[in-house]
């Protein structure tokens, strides 16, 4: 006997300012590369009160398809709904919740540092430590390109901040599974035996 039934989604207000205790998930979504698809995916999230932390899209190996990497948060049931709802979209070809297996993630940032003459050497040293590249330079700025995981991004930003970050752009995260994997299926997992 099942005992008292718990609602599938226990805390409803997970839309804006969703509690950070929810686990972060990175979901890879292979979609048709045509107009309107991004709005369908974004609309799914906004319409159901799910949260997108970051999203990146670009064509995949097959130019008729694009790969989206969506970073979101939720408890198991919210993530299950997100995966199912994404699968339900007709323009979505494959959905993979990367958290189910091991994966690697990367993000790229371009950081424009406004430097005083006495700080310019320090800026280069920091870039060097993080194996970042200086991709542009003007008499008063350096533009530094850095790639890595979220922690590395935060670390270099923290160090460069005192020197004066003028502008910062981040790509949002992309991630890939370490092993070839199967998509998250529409058919639910087997239930545990009693």
């Amino acid at each position: 006997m099942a005992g008292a039934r718990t609602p599938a989604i226990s805390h409803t207000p997970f839309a804006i300012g969703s509690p950070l205790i929810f686990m972060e998930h990175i979901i890879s979504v292979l979609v048709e590369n045509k107009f309107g698809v991004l709005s369908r995916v974004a609309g799914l999230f906004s319409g159901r009160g799910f949260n997108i932390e970051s999203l990146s899209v670009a064509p995949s190996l097959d130019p008729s398809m694009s790969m989206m990497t969506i970073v979101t948060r939720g408890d198991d049931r919210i993530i299950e709904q997100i995966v199912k709802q994404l699968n339900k979209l007709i323009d979505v070809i494959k959905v993979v919740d990367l958290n189910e297996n091991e994966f690697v993630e990367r993000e790229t940032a371009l950081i424009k540092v406004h430097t005083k003459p006495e700080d310019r050497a320090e800026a280069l040293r920091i870039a060097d430590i993080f194996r970042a590249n200086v991709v542009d330079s003007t008499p008063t700025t350096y533009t530094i390109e850095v790639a890595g995981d979220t922690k590395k991004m935060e670390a270099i930003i923290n160090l460069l901040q005192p020197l004066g970050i003028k502008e910062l752009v981040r790509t949002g995260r992309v991630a890939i599974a370490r092993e070839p994997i199967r998509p998250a299926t529409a058919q639910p997992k087997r239930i545990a035996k009693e």
Partner: protein
Amino acid sequence: MKLTGAEIFVECLKREGVKTLFALPGGVVLKIFDILHQQKDIDVILTRHEQGAGHMAEGYAKATGKPGVALVTSGPGMSNIVTALVDASMDSVPLVCFSGQVSTSLIGNDAFQEADNMGLSRPCTKYNFLVKDVNDLAVTIKEAFYVATTGRPGPVLVDIPKDVSMNKTDFKYPGSVSIRGYNPTYDGNKWQIKQAAEAIAKARKPILYVGGGVVFSGASEELIELAEMMNIPVDMTLMALGAFPGEHPLSMGMMGMHGTYWANMAVHYSDLVIAVGARFDDRVTGKVSEFCPHAKVIHIDIDPTSIRKNVNVDIPIVGDCKRVLRELNQILRATVNGEQKELRKPWLDQIHEWQRAHPLTYEQDSNGPIKPQHVIKRLYELTKDRDPIVSTDVGQHQMWAAQYFKLTKPRRWLTSGGLGTMGFGFPAAMGAQAAFPGRLVLCVAGDGSVQMNTQELATAVVNKLPVKVVIINNRYHGMVRQWQDLFYEGRYASSYLDVVPDFVKLAEAYGAVGLRAAKVSEIDDVIQEALAVDRPVFVDVPVDQYENCYPMIPAGGCNHEMILADPPELKKKQVVGTPVVGEDKDTVLTA
């Protein structure tokens, strides 16, 4: 030979077997209407409002199981039909809606009668298409019908710019289409089905909780077999009425907020809930955390997102209801013995006891005001031999119709469930009548609801759609007033309608027939008179204004804690708090 987009459009509809098109023209779709005008295979029903066209297409689809098709113009034409698209989306109605669009060169320029049709329809359709090139038109239409009618059915919009309908190309209609991102699951997981069969065989207090999915997949036969073989009582949702014969001894009638006492008690105290083609809507579950607290749950649904959306499920089965039930029955048939019936006797006895304790009741004084339940009950009794199709609007009358109409077959019940769209009933009835000219089509409406689409009287008269509309007229938005009685201390904020048109004269003004039953003794005669006429009829029945619909589970309440009658303090309030405004007008209307 090259055909214009408009010719291709008409040709594609013919190939899809479309017989009836509900439509209203406008500038950008004139080319299409011009071609439609020159052919005889597709019957074009001109509606008086695009919302009417949408609901007619829904009624057509619900009654036939085939896709309903509508054609509207750009801008306001499109925005007017949005309500019907949302409604169809909530109730899984296969609809293919075509909208006109300004020429491709003007899209995005805020041109005259331009609207972002794709943006408007995206959240309320299963899928939508913008055809930018006439060469894509035929395959897009094929895909639209394919998506609307397969898997979990739903509305699909095809947006056709003016130049696409004018341009010419070679016509090739694809025999079939496939979409790589769209592969509905029809066959249930065998292992899960076996688990379900074992759970069903073991259960002492099982209940079938069936929804609209049973109707859409045509699984009634399989459902009846399962219920009879295993002696399982059947609770129906509003959407499922007719999926299981209403007068069958195992039918518990409707469950949920205004469901029967025994249907709700049964689901609350059961030890196994077998949900088939239902989605655990809040109007059914009440307080989710207290829904069937003692039960294991089996959930069969074609839409994986319905499963575990609202409640936890022990045995989920994604698949088409008909196929899954057939397979389930096969396993059970091999193992069934007399034991199950014996095992469940105490459970059925308990349910019958609940049935005896709190049947559906009302008190009709033969000289007093007409009780709305009485009208609906008489309508049911006088028409049941003719196997009518019944549509309803939304509100108290809808719930009473759901309680008192015991439908024996699926696709006889047209109602707006998920969205609760007032104004749905009358055009939906007309859509069903257009599909079945010879059948009796009834519409139970409220005075508030019916006024949301009375303009379609003209459509009914012109197209000879002899629907019989019975208006339960209490001159209130009755369900709103009921909530105000129960939860807002009887303050009737904007629920009293004050001026209600004379529905008899209104019908006559359009060239339809208007009748009125003002006394209890007149009800039968007036209904018979309406049935005898081969024209659209409005029957106005002024009823007790303060009758409330029970049982009722207050929103967010538990299923076993129903309000069964007006609470005593409420009755007192009615006497004191009855609004006097407009009271004298009763005489004007009922005289």
